[in-house]
């Protein structure tokens, strides 16, 4: 859908921009909401997945005979129970869901069984005899691409990789424009530094869970917590060798996803067991399995080189980004590369990415995948350069900021964007002027994310009493049901409370892409507005028919059909309830529909300011104050927008200071528990202050831009800068944990 389709439709709103109560609030606080593990079915079995304890091992033999004979056991599956002949991403997903002849990481699924009770299933799992032959492993991204590293999968290179690289390097990206060497030659200061970040988990509180029921005829039902049930439907059908339409998938209420529930991990296993046992099978992942086998981000190793003149003008920028997506070819290194310098209007820029395989779980998306680590590296170098040149870090960013019409570092020209506005708001924010005490430091950083549209279908159904239901296909991971209802209320002119938005299952609505790419309020929102307009058109037609005038002579305002002027005729406005009460007799039910692949998702920028205090004796960091400034285009429900900003900052604080996947020498994950892996909780944090900037997105009727991801892009950098400025030593590796900061301080003091 082209942007020019939307003239600035509205400038004032009755509903959009208000903060009504969330529709799912009571369900969630009373326990009525049904999450993934809350579904049950008569005769249901309980499943357990057996996982490799080794980082890399040949699976020599799986002997299930004793387990099969154990009490209560109804089905056991291995790789042989899934489709063969798959290729591309479906093959990769299957290879992750159930190992083939090799276990590729600690926690890789190798076998699963279902029994009549959970305890029987667990007991029987101990009776499965699996013989492994360990082979050399590698988990570090730099070591994985060094000469001599064990090869994860021979021949996985997609053809883009420069000659002479290790076979674990499977994809290469390069983009940019201008001549960076010429740019560096013009600089007064050139700085080149190397950075490293570790993998982190999305940390959703709800573990993956599902209930699957598939008959021997290949027809089935699946209930699961997911960010995208049409994708689950498609993938499960492929992995089980059945037709997509044979499987109906219903998304449960979701207890956090952050990108990690865009992937399929356990659903095909539950269905395969169910098909074999001919009984419903429930599968709930234990927390340790969630850590070991789902969703981490890619660890990253990065080199950044930037040239700057004395007045703060960036003359050239170059970045190299090495990421590992685990034992699968999919690290989001091109997103790291493309986002790295996107905030700046640069004459000369070059960015390169390497996708490196290693013995880690298959990476999954985590809010703006690939961008936070790139921003950490780039914004750290900028901070250091501002320090060395004695320049204000926000003024320097403003001086170089990308604007409407700038050529983006990754290629296209920017449409209407709001980075400058976020920088100006940050510079003028009292936080930026507040004094700092001894031992405290301030850090700032900017961040960028593309945002996404994607395939979308929405139906809007009117009831006889003039209320409305909206069926959307994008699971609500950030309050989107409230936002849909607000946008529909705006178009229909009926109260927010009279509209109920539900997440339809795969059999009752057209295809919907996953809730990812910050696309839901943008794309489902656009489709909701269009569907509501479709319904409004039909209502106008009914009024026109009643009045005996041309439908074009009727317009809709505040819940009423009205004749468009004296020439149309003199009629009293007709309220929606009047139209819907008789709709059966005037032409039948009135519904609105819309389906499309909208392509006008406006890109989004943010600027963060953070103050931190470092304890020089322990290396411990305390976050004192945090302000997020981000462009939302138009905030439909500002409280939810602020929640997204705060959540991004908080997850960034965890990533910057605490969270990391720690692998032992043997390649096994050392901290697969919340007792060893801390995500920040309320008591760890100051209140996160937010500023919503609204520079409308021309690609959406109300100007909406996605806000779900950009908020996690600047925090790693902003916090690292605050910590570095507080401690007086540059932290180039995250997390900046207390022992790591203390060691850096000692190194500095030792000269």
């Amino acid at each position, binding site marked *: 859908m082209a942007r020019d389709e939307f003239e600035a439709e509205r400038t004032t709103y009755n509903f959009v921009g208000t903060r009504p109560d969330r529709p799912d609030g009571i369900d969630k606080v009373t326990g009525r909401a049904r999450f993934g593990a809350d579904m049950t079915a008569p005769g249901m079995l309980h499943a357990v997945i057996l996982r490799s304890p080794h980082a890399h091992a040949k699976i020599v033999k799986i002997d299930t005979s004793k387990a099969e004979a154990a009490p209560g056991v109804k089905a056991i599956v291995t790789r042989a129970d899934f489709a063969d002949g798959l290729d591309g991403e479906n093959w990769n997903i299957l290879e992750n869901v159930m190992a083939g002849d090799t276990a590729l990481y600690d926690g890789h699924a190798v076998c699963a069984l279902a029994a009549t009770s959970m305890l029987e299933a*667990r007991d029987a799992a101990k009776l499965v005899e699996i013989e492994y032959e360990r082979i050399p492993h590698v988990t570090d991204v730099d070591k994985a691409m060094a000469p001599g590293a064990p090869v994860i999968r021979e021949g996985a290179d997609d053809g883009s990789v420069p000659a002479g690289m290790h076979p674990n390097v499977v994809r290469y990206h390069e983009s940019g424009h201008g001549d960076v060497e010429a740019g560096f030659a013009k600089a007064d200061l050139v700085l080149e530094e190397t950075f490293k970040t570790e993998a982190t988990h999305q940390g959703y509180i709800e573990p993956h869970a599902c209930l699957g029921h598939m008959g021997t005829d290949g027809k089935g039902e699946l209930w699961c917590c997911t960010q995208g049930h049409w994708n689950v439907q498609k993938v499960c059908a492929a992995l089980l060798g059945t037709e997509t339409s044979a499987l109906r998938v219903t998304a449960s209420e979701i207890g956090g996803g952050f990108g990690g529930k865009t992937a399929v991990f356990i659903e095909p296993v539950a269905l395969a067991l169910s098909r074999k046992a001919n009984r419903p099978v429930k599968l709930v992942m234990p927390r340790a399995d969630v850590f070991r086998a789902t969703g981490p981000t890619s660890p990253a190793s990065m080199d950044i080189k930037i040239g700057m003149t004395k007045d703060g003008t960036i003359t050239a920028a170059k970045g190299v980004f090495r990421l590992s997506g685990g034992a699968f070819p999919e690290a989001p290194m091109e997103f790291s590369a493309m986002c790295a310098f996107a905030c700046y209007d640069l004459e000369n820029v070059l960015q390169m990415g390497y996708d490196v395989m290693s013995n880690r779980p298959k990476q999954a998306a985590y809010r703006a995948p690939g961008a936070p680590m790139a921003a950490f590296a780039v914004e750290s170098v900028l901070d250091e350069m501002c320090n060395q040149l004695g320049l204000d870090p926000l003024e320097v960013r403003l001086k170089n900021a990308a604007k409407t019409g700038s050529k983006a570092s990754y290629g296209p020209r920017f449409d209407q964007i709001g980075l400058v506005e976020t920088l100006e708001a940050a510079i003028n924010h009292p936080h930026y002027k507040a004094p700092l005490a001894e031992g405290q430091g301030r850090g700032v950083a900017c961040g960028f994310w593309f945002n996404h549209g994607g395939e979308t279908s929405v139906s809007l159904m009117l009831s006889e009493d003039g209320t409305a239901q909206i069926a959307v296909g994008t699971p609500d991971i950030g309050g989107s049901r409230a936002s849909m209802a607000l946008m529909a209320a705006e178009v229909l002119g009926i109260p927010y409370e009279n509209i109920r938005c539900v997440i339809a299952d795969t059999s009752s609505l057209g295809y919907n892409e996953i809730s990812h790419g910050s696309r839901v309020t943008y794309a489902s929102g656009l489709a909701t507005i269009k569907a509501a307009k479709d319904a409004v058109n039909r209502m106008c037609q009914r009024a026109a028919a009643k009045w005996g005038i041309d439908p074009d002579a009727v317009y809709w305002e505040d819940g009423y059909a009205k004749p468009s002027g004296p020439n149309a005729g003199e009629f009293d406005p007709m309220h929606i309830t009047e139209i819907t009460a008789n709709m059966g007799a005037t032409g039948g039910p009135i519904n609105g529909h819309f389906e499309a692949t909208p392509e006008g998702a406006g890109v989004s920028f943010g600027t963060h300011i953070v103050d931190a205090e470092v304890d020089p*004796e*322990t290396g*411990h960091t305390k976050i004192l104050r945090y302000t997020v400034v981000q462009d939302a285009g138009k905030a439909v429900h500002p409280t939810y927008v602020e929640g997204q900003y705060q959540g991004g900052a908080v997850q960034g604080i965890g990533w910057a200071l*605490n969270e990391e996947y*720690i692998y032992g020498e043997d390649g096994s994950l*050392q*901290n697969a*528990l*919340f*007792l*060893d*892996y*801390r995500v920040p909780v309320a008591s760890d944090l100051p209140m996160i202050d937010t500023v919503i900037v609204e520079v409308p997105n021309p690609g959406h009727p109300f100007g909406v831009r996605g806000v779900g991801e950009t908020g996690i892009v600047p925090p790693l950098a902003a916090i690292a800068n605050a910590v570095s400025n507080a401690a007086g030593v540059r932290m180039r590796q995250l997390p900046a*944990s*207390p*022992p790591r900061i*203390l060691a850096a301080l000692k190194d500095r003091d030792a000269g």
Partner: protein
Amino acid sequence: MYAFEFEKPATIADAVAALGGEEAQALGGGQTLIPTLKQRLAQPGTLVSLKGIPEMAGICVADDGALAVGGATTHATVAASTEYPGLAGLASHIGDPAVRNRGTIGGSLANNDPAACYPAAALGSGATIKTNTREIAADDYFQGMFTTALEDGEIITEVRFPVPEVSNYQKFVQPASRFALVGVFVAKYADGVRVAVTGASEDGVFRWSEAEAALSANFAPEAIEGLSVDADGMIGDIHGSKAYRAHLVGVMTKRAVAAAS
């Protein structure tokens, strides 16, 4: 969890009798034991709850001025008490409100987790651990990680803390679990200073005698400047190396002295 029988006696005598049964185990607040059972790492035949025994709950000041804390007293109750501020302060930072409202001092001392807080207070105060059969001096009670002088079926009925002139507990938390990565309890008595360190050593809670001597001579943070514990024998794990823990022992001790009241 495996199936088990459950008993909730009202007297120490009945509890002791119940614990004499086969495969019986005491249950305090269950904050350690219940997760262990859930993971099927233990299989007691009977759980004997100590939470229904009035003579084991609550706090009072004994005739000799010592603070007597019943073995089934919760962390929350100790945290709210006023007689021994250093001890109350320590209890107020154990876990979270749910843990403090369930967990008990007897359970904590019986478990003797090397990263637990109470062992530092008991050893740092020279407390007496009273059981159904005897009295054990704290110096004899702690025998290494998860190991104590308790016999099978023996229960902690009370812990007696001599109340110091001033005291303080400083805990550097393990970032995820919030147990002590290193915790130091400092207590100044008329006859000298005691310093007990938890979380740090492979041998569990220990007294830092060099610091005790230095602080007994001069109760000031500077007194331990230059002193350090040997990194050998410290715990080294994903949250902190041996050297980092040894370093923290010095820092936390200084801070405890500075904060003592």
